[in-house]
């Protein structure tokens, strides 16, 4: 444990004014640590990492880190990231988005990036709520939950983001929680190494809003819930849909290969020149 803060400090921007924007008990800080450890483990140069985000709590992640960093508009991070990847193919482009950012306003960009197989690693922080704007229902909010924008209970059914991107053609899809940090480090590392559109869905507690609205309790209680309700993918295959109700299926869900957009584009260059 002693090593962790030291490693993080090598990647934090010393010039950036702290404190950060996240609430006590938020899962995004744990994700930031996991991302840094995975990047460090992968041996990437800081100059070669391009970190892009959208809007929301997760949108504030890149500014603290000493990489090429870009904070874009709500839902559109993948579009900017696509442009950068094609202009500078040597960059390892990583996009961080929230659940509303990625699957509501940015849903179209998410599925088309997956279909296109653009070489980008996308990390989706899923806290099942709009945190920054004050706890409104998102596309992953559970059916029936009373939120700031569904005071009589949420009338809609949630997306399974991992299944969505799998269907759209992502070549690597993994899900983890911020409680399972070792597994989180590992799947982010695998996603970074994967050529093509890779997605890591990270279940993260929003204590301030989701915790309050569900009555799940303190940050510790929410972490304990993650610990108790995560089911490895391999085990989940043996379980019925009923048994999987309210469980989080974790692990690597998809790992396939197909040509990436920028490789195909480079082939066109060679052919038409």
């Amino acid at each position: 444990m002693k090593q962790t803060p030291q490693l993080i400090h090598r990647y934090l921007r010393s010039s950036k004014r702290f404190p950060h924007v996240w609430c006590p008990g938020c899962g995004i800080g744990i994700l930031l640590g996991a991302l840094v450890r995975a990047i460090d483990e992968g041996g990437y140069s800081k100059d070669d990492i391009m970190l892009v985000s959208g809007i929301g709590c997760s949108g504030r992640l890149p500014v603290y880190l000493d990489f090429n960093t870009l904070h874009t508009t709500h839902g559109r991070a993948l579009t900017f990231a696509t442009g950068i990847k094609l202009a500078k193919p040597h960059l390892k482009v990583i996009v961080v988005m929230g659940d509303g950012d990625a699957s509501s306003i940015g849903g179209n960009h998410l599925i088309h990036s997956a279909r296109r197989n653009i070489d980008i690693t996308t990390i989706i922080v899923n806290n099942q709520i709009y945190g920054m704007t004050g706890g409104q229902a998102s596309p992953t909010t559970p059916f029936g939950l009373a939120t700031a924008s569904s005071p009589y209970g949420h009338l809609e059914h949630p997306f399974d983001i991992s299944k969505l991107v799998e269907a759209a053609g992502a070549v690597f899809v993994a899900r983890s929680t911020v409680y399972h940090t070792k597994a989180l480090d590992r799947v982010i590392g695998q996603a970074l190494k994967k050529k093509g559109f890779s997605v890591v869905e990270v279940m993260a507690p929003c204590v301030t809003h989701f915790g309050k609205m569900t009555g799940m309790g303190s940050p510790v209680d929410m972490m304990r819930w993650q610990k108790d309700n995560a089911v490895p993918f391999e085990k989940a295959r043996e379980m019925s849909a009923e048994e999987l109700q309210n469980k989080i299926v974790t692990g690597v869900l998809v790992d396939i290969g197909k040509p990436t957009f920028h490789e195909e584009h480079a082939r066109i260059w060679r052919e038409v020149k």
Partner: protein
Amino acid sequence: MSTQTTPERVLLQGSEACVRGALAAGCRFYAGYPITPATEIMELMSRMLPQAGGVFIQMEDEIAGIGATIGGSLGGLKAMTATSGPGFSLMQEHISFAAMAEVPCVIVNVMRGGPSTGLPTRPMQGDVMQARWGAHGDHPILVVAPSSAYEFFDLTVKAFNLAERYRSPVIVLADEIVAHTRESVVLPPLAEIEIEDRVKPTVPPEWYSPYRDPGTGIPPMAAFGEGYRFHVTGLMHDINGFPTQRQDETQELMMRLFNKISKDFHLLQWYDSYYDEGAEITVIAYGSVARSALRAVKMARDKGLPVGLLKLKMLWPFMRRTVMQYLESSRKVIVAEMNMGQLSREVKRVNQGKCEVLTLNKIDGQMITPSEILAKVEEALA
């Protein structure tokens, strides 16, 4: 792509001239979405850009089109997208981002007829005010308006130059007639085309502040992935690009965004004038209407009528200095445009009682004809 060393006479559609201009200016990135009447620009880019070693990508919508365009520019390439009214409306949020984050990019809007889906294959000039005020938040914008295939070539080159010089989004506001008309164009030798590139930092990376004013109002711009690790955001930011809410830093950034362009208003008076001498009446027009207007003015002069034409090639910032001269020298001006009076509002704003401002408006999806303008001129002289 052309590498001609002598002037070349070619038959070009306006859209094709635009693409040739973009490539001549050094455009190496295009991201867009099909939309009539701007689709030809995308199709030509898909064919020609890879041949020039550039990047072409068809995105999932116009929001993504301009998002990727901004990304391409942040990656160091000269980048553009093209669309028509409905797509232009979708792009507004990102035009605002490009203005705030100071990302050079060119957005071509080939105006169609009417609001909403309107008349996709017919001309109007309904987006003049949207081009200026469509994107949220207070910021300046640069908008040029070609009236011919040649000008579509020329102003696209210049739009890239402006984008690179001012680190700003630049809009090329064409109309359906200009984009679809095929006409003979004399393209200049490539070596004679003036090209401007963004100023890059010369300091070592550890000294680089991406938004520090070097005195010109325009900070040098590093590309991502070239060793300068910096932050770009649409939030109000300090000289390092980090978010700020400090009043002094907010004021400084906002004023710099405005002043970097307003300091050069005198350089941004782009117009052609015809038959100025003794003109009691000046027709003011832009885009394809200026073609009809020139014909009308020639017909009027043949009849001995004292009429001239002021063709505006830059719409925003509005050329107050130039227009004021004509308001002072003319008895009446006629602003002819294919909308219910968008640019004429600006002319009236700067007129301040100097002369009588008449308008000729047409919004039926048909071009304004020379005889319609001539009739208005004769009415004004009567």
